């Protein structure tokens, strides 16, 4: 399962604070996970749980008032937290590609798609205009855009959403990256297009040994595409595990609740399990386990204490003291 080689991306104890007059600590707190080469890791959780902040912080794309105040982010040996602007520019769009949710607002509307893809090659690899253009055509072809020779010269608005997202992916893989960070890449797309995009990412992953960090809230996409899952809640990682055991035997009450809130085959027209309450806003996080006020298994004294990470089985980690001390077993519950 895990390889002896170092992971492409390793995040250790990442903590992000809001600085300035409205200072808030621990929007993201003590987040640790790895993305090994050739694997897809999902970052899941409800909105406001810090998954996008975590993903953005890897390339230091956080707005200025948000700061990484503790922890370490290492990409292929480079310390991203202390890296210079120059180093970062060399990494963004080069060895690390990014794909965002909304292709229309991420692509430059005044540039042809060919130029946008070529830009990455020219910037990172110093290719000439002509070389980069030829490569852009090849990349469009590779991401399954028919008629690539003609499409290099069209503008993003002339394409459908699915096509635009392919262009985003083409730009993200333009410099043969080692890691692609994709933030909700298929959320705005229809399911048939989503299936094609995931298929595309999968084949690129096989060909290039690409590591993928996928931010999503769609558990179907996770089940389909990802190898490992990192579950976040209110800025904490509550559970991380390979995909099969996570779905089959969730260890953390939050993961269990999340899985139970999804409509399932054979249970049509029945009431779904709902997690009571809502994610607390930053600044109002409870001490200890942040899920505790909404947790049906919470025991006040135990859950208000800091929650260390337990490893109930190899590779499966969970931050719940009650589960860690065998006081609570979710397998008996579900």
């Amino acid at each position, binding site marked *: 399962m895990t390889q002896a080689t170092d992971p492409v991306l390793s995040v250790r104890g990442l903590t992000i604070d809001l600085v300035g007059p409205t200072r808030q600590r621990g929007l993201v707190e003590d987040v640790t996970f790895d993305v090994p080469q050739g694997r897809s890791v999902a970052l899941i959780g*409800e*909105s406001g749980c810090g998954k996008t902040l975590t993903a953005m912080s890897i390339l230091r794309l956080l707005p200025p008032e948000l700061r990484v105040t503790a922890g370490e982010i290492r990409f292929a040996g480079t310390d991203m937290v202390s890296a210079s602007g120059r180093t970062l520019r060399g990494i963004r769009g080069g060895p690390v590609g990014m794909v965002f949710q909304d292709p229309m607002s991420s692509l430059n509307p005044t540039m042809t798609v060919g130029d946008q893809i070529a830009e990455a090659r020219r910037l990172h690899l110093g290719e000439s205009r002509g070389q980069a253009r030829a490569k852009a055509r090849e990349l469009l072809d590779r991401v399954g855009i*028919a008629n690539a020779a003609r499409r290099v010269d069209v503008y993003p608005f002339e394409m*459908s*959403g*699915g*096509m635009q997202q392919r262009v985003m992916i083409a730009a993200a893989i333009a410099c043969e990256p080692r890691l692609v960070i994709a933030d909700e890449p298929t959320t705005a797309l*229809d*399911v*048939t*297009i*989503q*299936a*094609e995009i*995931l*298929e595309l990412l999968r084949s690129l992953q096989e060909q290039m040994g690409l590591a993928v960090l996928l931010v999503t*809230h*769609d*558990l*179907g*996409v*996770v*089940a*389909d*595409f990802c190898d490992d899952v990192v579950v976040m809640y209110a800025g904490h990682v509550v559970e991380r595990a390979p*995909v*099969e055991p996570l*779905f*089959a035997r969730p260890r953390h009450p939050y993961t269990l*609740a*999340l*899985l139970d*809130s*999804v*409509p*399932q*085959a054979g*249970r*049509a*027209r029945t*009431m*779904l*399990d*709902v*997690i009571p309450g*809502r994610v607390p806003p930053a600044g109002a996080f409870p001490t200890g386990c942040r899920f505790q006020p909404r947790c049906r298994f919470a025991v006040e004294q135990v859950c208000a204490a800091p929650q260390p990470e337990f490893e109930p089985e190899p590779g499966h980690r969970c931050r719940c003291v009650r589960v860690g001390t065998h006081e609570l077993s979710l397998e008996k519950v579900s």
Partner: protein
Amino acid sequence: MTAREPMALQATGLRKTFPLRRDLIGRVTERIVAVDGVDLEVARGATLGLVGESGSGKSTAARLAALLVRADAGRIETDGVDVTGVRGSQLKVLRSRLQMVFQDPYSALDPTKTVGHAVTEPLIVHGRRQDDLAGAAAALLTRVSLDPALARRRPEELSGGQRQRVCVARALALEPRVLIADEPTSALDLSTRAGILNLLLRLQQESGQAMILVSHDFATVQHLADRIAVMYLGRVVEEGPADRIVEAPLHPYTRALLSAVPVPDPTVQRGRRRTVLHGDPPNPANPPTGCNFRTRCPIAVPECAQTDPALRAVEPGHRVACVRVETKTPETRS
């Protein structure tokens, strides 16, 4: 279907075109056919799910059925009464029987008005009630499981899920016979979505209104609907009981659509075979000849370019528009 009891809503032959291009003096030179001969029916107390990809015309069809947009052709009946040409004060009365819930609860509520005003405004507009509006607001909010104290708040103070509950409460204020919900959960988070689905299910059980649920999310539709109609490029291509459509879809488009929806279970999902559709849906302003779907259809034959398939019953209550699907006789049906 024999119509012993009149349907809560029955629409036949709905057609709607929108002007796409005009010449110098404003005459329409090109039209786009958004809805092309669509039949919809919902029995009292039942739910019809309307699914399809973006651009399939599902939202337009729902708006035509709600009489929010007037159809170019077709006939609409509620409870057996023809209401196609109803205008003026009669239309206003009819509106009270057909209410809508929209996708985006952020833009559906007036930010300058209180929640209490939002839910009671229909009562004022329709002259149902002038006194004790506060009491009416409290009752409506309670019905959708919101704290009546929220009546004094403004939408901006509410979460997405709470806002959508307000929209549902407002739609229910006039006790409609048919509730038409267009993507009611698409803008919501996972756990919030479960809450809204439960709410819609419970309200229907309590009050017995019919419901048309428009969604691109098959899981949602499958969870709530008794019958499902699948739309592609302005047409209904398959229509039947929800469990038959989900378990044994017959139209190649429905099959592809269903196979593209990832199941939130990695062991099941990874064992599934996917029918990948290639290409985007064709331009609705210039649809293919014959069957609309043939350009992406994995089982298309030359005949499909000539014949425009009509919906026909292939088993009791299950209709399909495809020349390649055989009619099932009782013996061959498993």
